[in-house]
């Protein structure tokens, strides 16, 4: 008996790191999961590793595109007949530059990936969830949704915006059996962070990737990075019936970094 028996979830950016940890945890609790990612080969490897049979599927595409995000929602409903849990998880630092040097095109990339993707996915998911009077929307935000760091203004601004979107939506659907929450992880050494970290470190003026990780750890109370499993455990709670009365919550998983 799992906490999510019979539930159906979809996860943007679900083949690796945080999204993957959520997918594994959801499957372990009895849910069926559609994971999304850009790379079909990675998607296949992810399904092989998950070894969840009919309870896992992959949907290929870039989640910063509207047709992909909406396609993921529609595919999930088509395949499993319903969508109970929509995890809008993908995102990251794509463009690093101080505000005075950032171009419109770079800014748009950050907005599409981190904010518009969440809006497109949430809107489509809610259109399905509202008639069913049931649903869970879980957005992977960040400590940068409440704080700020130099050199990554697009990431910081879009994560703040996502938190606002979550709170507004929570109030809109609060009486309809649907909750909308954000999880705010501290630094986690995910694949995305390993890939983009060196550029972020340079933009922030901290020298190296290792110095970047150390800086985030130093700002926390636990003096270590967080772990993907710590985020996944919170996602399971928020997805379960136990959290039916938690909504509009910005849930930190940041080792004590955020001041509020």
């Amino acid at each position, binding site marked *: 008996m799992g906490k999510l028996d019979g539930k159906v979830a979809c996860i943007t950016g679900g083949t690796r790191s945080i999204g993957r940890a959520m997918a594994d945890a959801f499957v372990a609790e009895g849910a069926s999961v559609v994971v999304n990612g850009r790379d079909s080969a990675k998607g296949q490897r992810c399904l092989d590793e998950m070894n969840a049979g009919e309870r896992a599927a992959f949907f290929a595409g870039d989640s910063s595109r509207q047709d992909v995000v909406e396609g993921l929602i529609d595919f999930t409903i088509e395949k499993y007949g319903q969508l109970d849990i929509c995890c809008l998880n993908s995102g990251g630092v794509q463009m690093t530059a101080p505000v005075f040097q950032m171009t419109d095109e770079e800014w748009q990339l950050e907005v599409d990936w981190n904010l518009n993707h969440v809006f497109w996915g949430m809107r489509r998911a809610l259109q399905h969830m509202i008639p069913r009077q049931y649903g869970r929307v879980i957005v992977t935000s960040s400590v940068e949704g409440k704080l700020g760091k130099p050199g990554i203004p697009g990431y910081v601004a879009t994560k703040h915006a996502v938190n606002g979107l979550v709170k507004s939506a929570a109030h809109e659907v609060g009486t309809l059996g649907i909750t909308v929450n954000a999880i705010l992880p501290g630094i986690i050494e995910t694949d995305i962070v390993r890939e983009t970290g060196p550029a972020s470190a340079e933009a922030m003026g901290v020298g190296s990737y290792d110095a970047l990780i150390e800086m985030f750890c130093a700002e926390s*109370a636990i003096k270590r990075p967080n*772990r993907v499993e710590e985020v996944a455990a919170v996602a399971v709670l928020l997805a379960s019936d136990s959290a039916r009365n938690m909504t509009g919550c910005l849930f930190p998983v940041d080792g004590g970094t955020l001041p509020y």
Partner: protein
Amino acid sequence: MGVLDGRVACVTGGTRGIGLAIASAFLAEGARVVINGRDPAKAERTLAELAAGDAVHFIAGDVKSRSDCEAVIDGTVEHFGRLDILVANAGGAADFAPIVDLPDEPLEDALRWNLWHSFWCMRRAFHHMIPQQSGRVINISSVEGKVGKPGLSSYVIAKHAVNGLTKSAAKEVGPLGITVNALCPGVIETDIVKEGGAGAAAAMGLTYDELLAQFASDSAIKRINEVEDVAHVAVLLASDAGAGITGSLISIDGGTAPY
């Protein structure tokens, strides 16, 4: 197999309401639990309801007393051999009034009940947790630890202070394997709220039912919370999965608090 197998917890104000729900959830996950309360007769009934045998133990004490708080912590260690999880859950306020008319005593009482109690229990618990390099402290705060309501200032002040204590303590013991968090529930119709609610409502110029309706209306879910909502989050924080969450003020308020 529970997520708290082998753990020992201490829950102040554990004979009813939120504390009882937490104690019950901890027991279901394999922990051994000390519940504290003022009234041994009430505790008898609670222990009978829990029917958890040797896994649960009652220690009488008034959390407004430092020596009682310390005795509850020490008594837990004495009885079960260790202390892994402290839930400083007791709290409340009485004799509400607008600040302009508020005497010192109700504020002092609210501080003692909510802030000093949490501080005394936490300080003593750290003496046990720091040497073992592991521990969980969960303070039951309130949505009133993040927002204000007219007429309820003693409670609002005390719960804001508890949140400050939580954040400072989290930074102090963060590298030692100990987490300190606060749960901030919206209003729940516990016995304490039923007892003190009329007075609080009067200070706000409302009836008790109007008070509950106003809290529900402030939320996104338009209903008040339930004790189990809080217990589920407490289990997560107390478990190994909660190791990376500290210094957090987690809202369990149906979308009421703005941050």
